[in-house]
């Protein structure tokens, strides 16, 4: 028997109206409309961002320059961001999804095309970030930061530089001291990369080979971590871990015995991007904000605080040498050439990757 089709969104609209009003009320508040700017929009902006992801004075500088008050809310994972917006935009003007989620938002028709004429500062971007495969021509997103997955390690406990994925995925040399990132797609895609395949469109038999490799490796793995690899490394629980360069760079300032390398097989690039969700109440303010972030000086202010790699050439030129020449923040170009963006390749594949790691964890 087939029941009449119903959608999650209409169900929520019908049944959860009261709850929705409750949770979104703080965003818009009950306050009367504030002052109106020259563009006819209220002098306000709702930014939905990651934690510790702006410069110390970024938002105040923006207010001084434009008169626009930025109210920032924080999310911890892309899933949280997506879940919050998929039932309808609760009032955000700018969001900061990672590249795979830019694809998801685009497919789900939840972000709007940017008016590039309003973002002249996009000329500041490094050439490598102007035409990424997940957003050709940068029609929907502007890069905020980028990251690369690699191996963080404790120098005194290694035999040489562990510059291959082999040392975490396929070897017992560091038995019991290995941390592997538990994110399903990263695990499978990096496994395929180690076996010599691209991280996109991985052939099905290769996925099985990757699963078998991890299952063989399990007795040597201490933990499948949730992006806290840098803390586990710092506390001495493990000595070698799959992690992002930005995260390892942060703990390296606390412990000189730690280092980071992008394995010679190549890796996955990630990029957090500025997007404007559909239904944004103040799209023109949003464009002004994005253009402001892409400015050289304003960008430098952010990267000085958060120490993540920048996609902004003009901001990079203003940065101190210990950032510009830091091989952890900017790994050698030879190995970077072998890195690529992963992409969202449909729910069936997401489900397959998840079931594969469920199998690995259960083995």
């Amino acid at each position, binding site marked *: *028997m*087939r*029941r009449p*089709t*119903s*959608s*999650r*969104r209409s*169900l929520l609209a019908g*049944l959860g109206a*009261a709850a929705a009003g409750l949770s979104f009320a703080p965003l818009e508040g009950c306050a009367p409309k504030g002052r109106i700017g020259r563009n006819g929009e209220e002098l306000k902006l709702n930014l939905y961002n990651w934690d510790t992801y702006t410069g110390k004075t970024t938002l105040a500088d923006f207010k001084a320059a434009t008169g626009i008050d930025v109210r920032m809310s924080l999310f911890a*994972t892309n*899933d949280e961001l*997506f879940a919050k917006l*998929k*039932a309808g935009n609760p009032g955000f003007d700018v969001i900061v999804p990672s590249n795979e989620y830019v694809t*998801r938002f685009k*497919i*789900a028709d*939840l972000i709007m095309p940017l008016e590039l004429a309003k973002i002249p500062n996009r000329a500041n971007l490094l050439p490598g970030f102007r035409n990424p495969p997940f957003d050709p021509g940068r029609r929907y997103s502007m890069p905020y930061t980028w990251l690369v997955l690699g191996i963080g390690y404790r120098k005194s406990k290694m035999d040489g530089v562990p510059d291959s994925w082999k040392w975490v995925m396929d070897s017992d040399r560091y038995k*019991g001291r290995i941390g592997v990132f538990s*994110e*399903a*797609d990263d695990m499978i895609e990096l496994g395929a990369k180690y076996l010599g395949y691209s991280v996109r469109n991985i052939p099905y038999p290769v996925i099985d080979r990757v699963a078998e490799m991890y299952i063989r490796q*399990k007795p040597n*793995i*201490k*933990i*499948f971590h*949730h992006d806290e690899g840098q803390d586990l490394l710092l*506390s*001495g*629980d493990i000595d070698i871990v799959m992690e992002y360069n930005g995260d390892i760079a942060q703990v390296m300032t606390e412990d000189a015995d730690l280092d980071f390398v992008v394995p010679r097989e190549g890796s996955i690039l990630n990029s957090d991007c500025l997007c404007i969700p559909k239904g944004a109440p103040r799209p023109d303010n949003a464009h002004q904000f994005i253009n402001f972030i892409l400015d050289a000086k304003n960008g430098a202010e952010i990267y000085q605080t958060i120490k993540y790699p920048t996609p902004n050439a003009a901001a990079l030129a203003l940065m101190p040498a210990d950032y510009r020449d830091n091989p952890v923040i900017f790994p050698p170009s030879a190995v970077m050439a072998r890195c690529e963006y992963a992409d969202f390749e449909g*729910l069936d594949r*997401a*489900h397959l*990757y*998840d*079931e594969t790691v*469920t*199998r690995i*964890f*259960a*083995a």
Partner: protein
Amino acid sequence: MDESWTRAKGVFATLAGPPVVWLVAFFLIPLGIIWAFSFGENASLTQIAINGTFSNYAHAIKPLYLGIILKSFWFAALTTVLCLVVGFPVAVAITFASEKTKAWLLLLIMLPFWTNLLIRTYALMAVLRTEGYINFTLGFLWNGVAHLAALFGYHAPAFTPLELLHNNFAVVFGLVYVQLPFMVLPLYAALDRLDRSLLEASLDLGAGQLTTFARVVVPMAMPGIVSGVLVTLIPSIGAYLTPDLLGGPSSQMIANVIERQFKTANDWPFGAALSFLLMYMTFVAIAVQAMLARGRRSARA
């Protein structure tokens, strides 16, 4: 108070109204929505088409997922047995303590609830980790003894820290730590009502301490044991935080799989089916237990 509620319908409705509305609006309806999802499929990234399909359940009873559910039951059962073994003497001790001490002991049992579970779990990590408090203390003692032994010409090997965190031991340890108060409190409630003269009678009539315990105390505490077991076992099966934070490469429990369906895998219908499969199984287990109990009671009568 002698008055039947039927004669004060207005008062009853006023008192029962808010909790009923609350229960329906914030428990039954959301649960119903998730239940409906379990018969649906993903139509797109944001839409679920509820079309009465059983495919999610068919997928959920694959050996892979049943195996994980079985493992969760096993972890939970082990936790419950350990809680019972540890909790029973504690409850007995509290029962026989003086009135003043009793209040303090009960407070100590409930004290952990004043701190959030997440914070308690992180604290446990600091205790168990390779360079944590237990290993630090053991290493300190080991080195002291080794120094002493060196005076007598014996050279002890260097201290190797115990692997206490990120394995299945840590998960069961953490679960016992979290669930213990839920076992002790119902046990205490049952034991405290126990008529002491029955114990004296049993001892006077020639039963030993053990016989008295096994044939008088345990049967009379049975209601407490049953409710203690239920409130320990059921939350343990669905434990999510503990295996996630304390577990190792093989500590995945079913709640961790369900969590991923609602997050990264973005497969709410399948996650809903897994959740309800677990709930159906729990219902069946409780029903079987109730039937057995009734059978026992009628057999005795």
